[in-house]
């Protein structure tokens, strides 16, 4: 939880950022031992200095983006376990942290398998369901918004998500489409429209399903929460994030599909732009509210279709960047840092990122060339990345050491640098993990 101080209105973006980060840094933890407490404070203090781009002893190595599956796979856990057996992951996770003493907590994303089963979730397949047990979870691309629905979306994005999108991707929640439009709830008699669906059998059956799903979710969160608390109690801090996408990627990844969105740039550019615009205030509101609810000081963007190979710089600047920038600037005003996970490469987009105010971003790179990143961005923004997954999976320990060493040569003296992987990998070796974690301690 984050409670805004009374003088919030008078605070500058940087002061607001400080309040949010203080709140995160000082969140109460019940430590296992005084030693764990000292370690935790040292680690979170260093991470905080990096976020503030203030002098500190060394960069950190953060495995959360790359090693999140390896930390349990190394003890024989598989994809199905990560989706269904959250208790089972606890032992291996605690063991990993004890053994490796990483700078930050690393654990798999919490996928609620039983909830996904109950809701008949369509946009993913997962281990223990349609994928082999070995694998975790995979997106299934689809056209969940038709080309002629752009205007419906733009007229009321929230209504579209609730009554069109959700019924399409979770058939168990189909009856949501029966809900009235909320602007109509203005006078007493409108209550009839509002409550009517709740009296009908299909809607009531859905509510039963939702309650079951809620119970299952609570069980999972209980297990995951307890594990998380134990990891923190043993001395390992984690960064708080709310996951988000750019307006263009919501429309592209989630609603229209890759081919759909990319051809829409020619077939219905104005509809596409209008939909991105309409989504901006809705998205800002959603991220700010989430940050207040759970106290996360940063929003984590997974970035897809604005990468170098997807579109030209002119298309990027027309379709992708403006509405995304609006969202980031609004979050900046609210003191929320934008953590950009930049998949693929952004060699041509660095100047755009450089337009953003100082300390508003953490730029986490996958395959972007890091030399220009150093030059163009590292004085203004926090930098993370870009140890290749291919190296972690199939390289030698010496090769990992050499790659991380080069990154240290480049960024060792940057105001804020986080050694991190360019993308996740299922498997590596303990030796390579150790080389990665130790690389920042030279």
């Amino acid at each position, binding site marked *: 939880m984050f409670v805004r101080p009374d003088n919030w209105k008078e605070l500058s973006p940087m002061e607001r950022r400080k309040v949010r980060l203080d709140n995160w840094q000082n969140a109460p933890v019940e430590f296992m031992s005084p030693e764990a407490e000292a370690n935790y404070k040292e680690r979170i203090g260093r991470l905080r200095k990096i976020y503030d781009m203030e002098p500190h002893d060394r960069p950190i190595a953060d495995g959360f983006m790359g090693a999140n599956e390896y930390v349990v796979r190394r003890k024989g856990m598989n994809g199905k376990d990560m989706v269904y057996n959250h208790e089972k992951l606890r032992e291996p996770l605690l063991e990993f942290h004890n053994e490796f003493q990483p700078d930050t907590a690393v654990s798999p994303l919490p996928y609620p398998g039983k909830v996904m089963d109950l809701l008949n979730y369509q946009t993913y397949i997962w281990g223990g369901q349609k994928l082999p047990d070995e694998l975790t979870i995979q997106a299934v691309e689809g056209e969940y918004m038709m080309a002629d629905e752009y205007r419906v979306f733009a007229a009321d994005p929230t209504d579209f998500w609730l009554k069109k999108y959700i019924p399409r991707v979770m058939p168990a929640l189909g009856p949501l489409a029966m809900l009235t439009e909320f602007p109509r709830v203005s006078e007493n008699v409108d209550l009839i429209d509002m409550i009517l669906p709740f009296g009908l059998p299909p809607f009531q059956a859905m509510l039963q399903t939702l309650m079951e799903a809620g119970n299952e979710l609570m069980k999972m969160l209980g297990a995951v929460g307890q594990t998380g608390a134990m990891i923190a109690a043993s001395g390992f801090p984690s960064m708080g994030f709310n996951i988000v996408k750019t307006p263009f990627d919501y429309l592209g990844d989630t609603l229209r599909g890759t081919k759909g969105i990319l*051809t829409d740039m020619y*077939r219905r550019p104005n509809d596409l732009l209008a939909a991105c615009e309409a989504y901006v205030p809705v998205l800002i509101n959603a991220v700010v509210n989430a940050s207040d609810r759970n106290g996360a000081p940063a929003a984590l963007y997974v970035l897809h279709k604005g990468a170098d190979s997807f579109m*030209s710089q002119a298309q990027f600047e027309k379709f992708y960047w403006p509405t995304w920038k609006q969202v980031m600037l609004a979050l900046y005003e609210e003191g929320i840092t934008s953590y950009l996970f930049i998949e693929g490469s952004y060699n041509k987009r660095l100047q755009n990122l450089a337009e953003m105010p100082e300390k508003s971003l953490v730029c986490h790179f996958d395959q972007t060339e890091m030399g220009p990143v150093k030059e163009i961005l590292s004085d203004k923004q926090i930098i993370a990345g870009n140890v*290749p997954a291919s190296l972690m*999976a199939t390289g030698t320990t010496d090769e990992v050491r050499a790659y991380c060493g080069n990154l240290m040569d480049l960024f060792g003296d940057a105001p804020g640098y986080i050694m991190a992987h360019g*993308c996740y990998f299922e498997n590596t070796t303990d030796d390579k993990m150790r080389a990665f974690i130790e690389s920042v301690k030279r």
Partner: protein
Amino acid sequence: MSQELIDAITDMREDDVLRITNELLDGGASPLDILNACKAAMEVIGQRFETGEAFIPELILAGEMMTAVSDILKPRMAEAAASDKLGKIVLGTVEGDIHDIAKDIVVFMLDLNGFEVTDLGVDVPAAKFVEAVQETGATIVGLSGFLTLAYDPMKETVAALRENGLNVKIMIGGGQIDEQIRDYTGADAYGRDAMAAVALAKEWVKES
């Protein structure tokens, strides 16, 4: 050859492309002429892709325009005259991986540059690559993959091709594939993009 049609295609004016095609046909133009105009337009788009002026949207759209035009032409032509091909290539995304956007672009560019490409689609098991090479007599195989999970299927596919004694050159590429993975899989080459795929293929047919 209709410059108007070429321009419409390279400007991505989809509706005009269909209109002009129909008008040309009504005016007595031969389907072959129209195909040649399409080919010329594709070459322009291919060049723009190489020089970084065209990207995925243009290639997808160009592909869709070509399908639409050939749907119009098909009933009117017996069989498109098969032009000489530089060589035969079998290409697909390996087992367990369904990323196809990049693969489609590689196929598009190879095709444009005069190769006869058999596209096996996505999630292709090793045995299917072997079968396709045996059936087509291809001398080059391209494996696309975007996942770390694709490393082993790639390695297995390379091994299967070799075990079956097939004398093919194998190139790999896609998202998390790099030189490191070429080494791991035992493929002959790694290509960073579709232009690299074309360059490799051209080099290999010259050698053989």
